[in-house]
């Protein structure tokens, strides 16, 4: 099993002819994802070629969904147009929109996120690596080769740090049900708790890795949710223990304001709520082994 995507996922790539969109479409197809359509305004009627055959391109999401019964989309369009693309997707009838695009203005996202909520569409991201369910497919940019099928769910605000953790799990012979990157922007669609709740309901997920970072209180709320709701073990990691307050550390959301959102605080709340915290990325692997009784 897996969360949010599985073999029934029928994906549209928004911005399929762009630099990132075209590269990652081929990667997604290679990872077994059923990419049924692409959208690039003005290029409707053309075909996007891959090793597994051609993917039809449409001008609009409506046309793509109508022609292919797609149920998910992934957004690679440039930041100025990305919030519009998210809303177009949400309006077209898909259930899941994964926004990879980095650099979308935050106030645009407050509207776009409200729009997806009005339509009960799950938004993942923006500014996130997407998600992968090894063996079933991926939506986004997480490298397939570092993953393996197995019993661990991974949820993270980060990209490459997630790869690091997943890579180490895989090398140690521990596979994953689904790895989800929720993104580092202040406004994101799917948060930690949404993922933890989904992992809780997935019978194949036997432990979860939660990778957070400084800024905000999402990790703290998630930790409390874990202690109140989760039966399977959760292992945590927080990046940014050496980050100075008041400075944005790469992710727009990674900033310590006043005394809130520090790594110390988050680690403390994790531990108070029964989440074992790895001090180094490499410790994640060991704590998970312990949690799984390996």
């Amino acid at each position, binding site marked *: 099993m897996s969360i949010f995507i599985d073999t029934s996922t029928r994906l549209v790539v928004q911005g399929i002819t762009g630099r990132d969109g075209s590269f990652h479409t081929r990667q997604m197809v290679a990872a077994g994802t059923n990419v049924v359509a692409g959208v690039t305004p003005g290029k409707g009627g053309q075909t996007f070629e891959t090793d597994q055959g051609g993917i039809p391109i449409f001008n609009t999401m409506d046309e793509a969904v109508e022609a292919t019964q797609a149920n998910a989309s992934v957004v690679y369009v440039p930041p100025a147009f990305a919030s519009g693309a998210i809303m177009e997707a949400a309006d077209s009838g898909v259930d899941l929109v994964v926004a990879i695009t980095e650099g979308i203005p935050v*106030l645009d996202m407050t509207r776009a996120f409200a729009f997806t909520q009005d339509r009960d569409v799950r938004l993942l991201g923006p500014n996130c690596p997407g998600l992968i369910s090894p063996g079933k497919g991926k939506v986004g*940019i997480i490298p397939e080769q570092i993953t393996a099928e197995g019993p661990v769910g991974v949820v993270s605000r980060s990209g*490459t740090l997630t790869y*690091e953790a997943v890579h180490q799990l895989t090398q140690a012979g521990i596979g994953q049900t689904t790895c989800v990157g929720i993104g580092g922007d202040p406004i994101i669609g799917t948060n930690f708790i949404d993922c933890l709740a989904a992992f809780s309901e997935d019978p194949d997920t036997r432990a979860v890795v939660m990778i957070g970072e400084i800024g905000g209180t999402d990790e703290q709320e998630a930790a409390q949710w874990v202690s109140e709701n989760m039966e399977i073990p959760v292992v945590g990691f927080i*990046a*940014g223990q*050496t*980050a100075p307050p008041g400075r944005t550390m*790469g992710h727009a959301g990674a900033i310590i304001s006043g005394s809130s959102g520090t790594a110390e605080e988050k680690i403390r709340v994790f531990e108070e709520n029964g989440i074992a915290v790895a001090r*180094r990325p490499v410790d994640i692997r060991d704590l998970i082994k312990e949690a799984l009784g390996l």
Partner: protein
Amino acid sequence: MDIHEYQAKELFRKAGIPVPPGDVARTADEAEALARALGGSVVVKAQVHTGGRGKAGGVKLASSAEEAREHAEAILGMEINGLTVHKVLVTPAEDIASEAYVGVLVDRKKQSATFMVSPEGGVDIEQVAEDNPDAILKMPIDPRYGLLPHQAYRMSTFLYDDPKLVKQASKIMGQLYRAFNENSCSLAEINPLIVTPDDEVKAIDAKVTIDDNALPRLPEVEAYRDTDAEPPSETKAREASLSFVKLDGNVGCCVNGAGLAMATMDLVKYYGGDPANFLDIGGSSNPEKVIAALEIITADPNVKVILFNIFGGITRCDDVANGIVEATKQIDIEPPIYIRLTGTNEDEALQILKDAGFSAYTSMDEVVETAVNFAAQA
């Protein structure tokens, strides 16, 4: 992007918010002339992107143009929290009956813009939040509807009892929200919002942060950028599309991805070292970005060792390797470079580095520990 107080006031004025007059001076002469033109008492205020200007002696009251000149002389060139003052704002001194706080920011928890208002203005709002949280009213704004009249009214009555003041404050909140939205702010605050003895409500200090992501569509706001007000290394990093923050340590870090970059810094600390910087070279890196990164890191005389930690996903390890080799040809790099590379095109990268005489690690812990140990001995 932070903008100066005088620029924030300009945006507020355009939105109709009552802001006292005044202008910016770069020299004591200019400050004196401005003070003379305004007449009466003025305040001379350092324009730097940091708080605590008052405590640092960067805000002074002057009762004459000559005194304004003296203050400007003292303040211009002063360092406040490591930033040099290049400009002062000269603005009339106002009689103040009361001070309040009004701010709008993006609240991650509410997933929306949110107002924060407090009748305790003129002080650090974080401090008020800690000491007297009941003195702050938070009001999340539904992005689909914007600020609604009853929300503005409720906040205004939290600040004032007198209906005359409530009416003025409600209007100012509407204008502030408009300014916040039209300029894609992540923060827009008035602190203090004063009441004068004549029952006029006015914005006396203004602080605005613009969402960097929105700058491409806001050329007029982008033009407010003051590169004098930021360290040259950060200007250079921004121009090279690198995410960089200067720190005080001696281990220069060059990483792809913000989370991994922070985790790398943390690991430096774990092994007893001290990071010299946060630096994320981003996803789709090319050799030029790596060169720019090395230039920025090596410009810091504290740096004793340079540490690369690259997990290739979108980033191709061979691009990074090429960048390192190219940089060592173009610029004189004194500190030794410790490199960890893994992921996409790892083998090609290792070959490139080997050909150029570098060795490389594949474990993050190993490379960090080695680099830290070198720095400790250097």
